[in-house]
């Protein structure tokens, strides 16, 4: 026979007091209300003052300008853009360029950072020294200097378009960037993609089946020949029946530059390389700290089970280290995103350059534009933090399980 636990009487007022005033009770609550009121008053004064000043000086205000024509061009845009589009569109062009360089920079920075950290932790003397030198040199030079170095010293030294370095007559490298053949879709594209999708789904299903067989019955099933057939064979059959999925438009020298083909501009390359190598130096140290935080006994236990060093790292050490790595890693990702605003120095059209730069000077509406730009960086940073928190939470959960 069990006795139901006695519930404390519901005291609504008490609970409210706890929630709002903490331990100090109603006095604390009053102090909080007063503090909030002062903050609100300061905010109101700032807004009201700015509004009056703008009106007395006849400076245009409000967000109406976003619907006006921008009237200038941007040399890299992920969405269709020309000079008769609106400032709204300029905003999104800049935003997407910022996101593009941040995302690609984060991916490269993470990969390089992990590789450098593992080099530095390696028992091989040469590798660990190379890792150490990389970190010490890159980490201690200002990032703007590194961006300018890549742009003005490395990429500007490439030849002019008419003397391009040609790779098989298809890729051309010059001081205007890397020009690659542009893929143009053919009728065979959709069957090809469908066949590839079927192959991928089949391969994932097989993997799931094989893992279950391994964990539940201890049975090893060799699946790679089937996976190969699914991933390569099926699309190949589709090509034979429906024809090739893509045709490549080759770049050709015409006038000053190459016509046809797609181009990766040097400003993008310089910015991405500089930001990712710079951030990688910090990430390497974070990863090293994370790995060192895992007890040495774990490594020894791995070896005593007969696992190779690589397998021990991959299966035992790194997953535990991730718990320590993720929080500081997040702040490095945020740093990289914010540092991307240095783009203006080398003419990469990011949000700060085209929107908080050109648009401010064309419209003169600094307050609105700077506020929007700050809002965007805040949003990007909070989103990155949120994603990384979810990831960290999942790691913690799997560790606990």
């Amino acid at each position, binding site marked *: 026979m069990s006795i139901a636990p006695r519930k404390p009487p519901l005291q609504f007022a008490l609970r409210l007091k706890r929630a709002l005033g903490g331990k100090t009770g109603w006095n604390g609550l009053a102090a909080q209300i007063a503090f909030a009121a002062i903050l609100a008053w300061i905010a109101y004064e700032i807004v009201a003052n700015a509004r009056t000043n703008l009106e007395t000086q*006849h*400076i245009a205000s409000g967000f109406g300008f976003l619907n006006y024509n921008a009237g*200038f061009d941007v040399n890299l845009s992920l969405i269709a853009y020309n000079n008769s589009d609106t400032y709204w569109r300029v905003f999104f062009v800049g935003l997407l360029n910022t996101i593009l360089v941040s995302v690609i920079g984060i991916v490269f920075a993470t990969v390089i950072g992990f590789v450098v950290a593992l080099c530095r932790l390696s028992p091989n003397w040469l590798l660990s020294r190379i890792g150490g030198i990389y970190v010490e040199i890159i980490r201690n030079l200002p990032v703007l200097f590194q961006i300018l170095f890549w742009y003005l010293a490395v990429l500007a030294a490439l030849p002019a378009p008419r003397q391009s370095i040609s790779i098989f007559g298809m890729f051309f490298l010059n001081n205007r960037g890397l020009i690659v053949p542009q893929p143009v879709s053919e009728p065979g594209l959709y069957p090809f993609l469908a066949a590839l999708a079927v192959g991928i789904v089949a391969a994932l299903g097989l993997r799931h089946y094989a893992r279950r067989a391994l964990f539940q019955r201890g049975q090893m099933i060799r699946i790679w020949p089937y996976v190969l057939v699914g991933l390569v064979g099926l699309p190949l059959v589709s090509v034979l029946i429906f024809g090739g999925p893509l045709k490549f438009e080759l770049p050709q020298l015409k006038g000053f530059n190459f016509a046809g083909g797609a181009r990766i501009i040097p*400003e993008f390359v310089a910015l991405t390389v500089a930001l990712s190598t710079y951030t990688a130096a910090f990430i390497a140290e974070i990863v090293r700290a994370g790995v060192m935080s895992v007890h040495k006994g774990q490594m020894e236990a791995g070896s005593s089970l007969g696992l190779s060093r690589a397998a021990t790292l991959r299966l035992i050490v790194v997953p535990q280290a991730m718990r320590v790595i993720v929080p500081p890693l997040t702040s490095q990702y945020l740093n990289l995103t914010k540092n991307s605003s240095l783009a203006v120095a080398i003419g990469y059209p990011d949000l700060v350059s085209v929107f908080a*730069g050109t648009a401010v000077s*064309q419209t003169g509406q*600094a307050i609105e534009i700077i506020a929007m730009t700050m809002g965007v960086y805040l949003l990007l940073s909070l989103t990155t933090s949120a994603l990384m928190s979810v990831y960290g939470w999942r790691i913690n959960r799997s560790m606990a399980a």
Partner: protein
Amino acid sequence: MKRVSLAVILAAAAALSVQSASAQTLKTVKDRGQLSCGVSQGLPGFSSPDDKGNWTGIDVDVCRAIAAVVLDDPTKVKFVPLSAKDRFTALQSGEIDVLSRNTTWTVSRDTSLGANFTGVTYYDGQGFMVKKSLKVNSALELNSASVCVQTGTTTEQNLADFFKGNNMKYEVIAFGSIDEAVKAYESGRCDVFTDDASGLYASRLKLANPADHIVLPEIISKEPLGPMVRHGDDQWFDIVKWTLFAMINAEELGITQKNVDTMLKSDKPEMKRVLGTDGNLGEQLGLTKDWVVRIVKAVGNYGEAFERNVGTGSPLGIARGVNNLWNKGGIQYAPPIR
């Protein structure tokens, strides 16, 4: 990053400053004992510091002339170098008293920025510079070219209009400062560098081999460059406006830095009026009777300032052209001092 933070600070200052636009600029400048003047970050002939840190140029001379009439000392000027995109915010926020920074007078700038143009220091137009080795003789041959430009200027919009109007394709690479744009042009990143024609001649001097570059004959826009002041202070607007007009009138009357003292003894009524030996026109402006004398003693008349800074007496060697006086074949014309 530095630019962004500057813009943020200026925006915040604009938001917080209490009634900075009231008609107090003259008093503020006198109390401070120094004129704060926004100039470029270094454009030879217009505003650039020499190796000793002294600023020279025609835009700089306008600032010195204002300091001369207000403070009786052309050296009491604090020059604030500004990038193209920071210049208006600096004026709006009250960081500078006058913006004299090769700025093109347009209707949108005259209205929505909360500032007014006071006159035209230099009539300019946008042009293109290319390497001689490209063998290009006209801007209409620039289809598919890569063009370097300074961001935040009318140049950027004119460029878009010109290429669109002529059905030509181009790639624009916009840099934060003129030096970065010129460096990219020199390194071969761009085929073309575009700027106001005067700016092209000035930038060409900075290149390793100026003779390897030519300025194409086409001028694709009107770029009247002049000083700007904040809205809401008519007295200050008048002072800046009439300082430039006085320089032009002095040239028209043949008053020069050398002969101004002898001219003071002249008994021609017009001369007496302008030089303040008769009447009180200067006091009506809130200045002193000898305001024109101060200007001419400080920087000379308009023609002298032009020749010394951008004209044939300077490394730029630009001909007077449209910037000559209206009675000598140009369009520089100032309302009379009477």
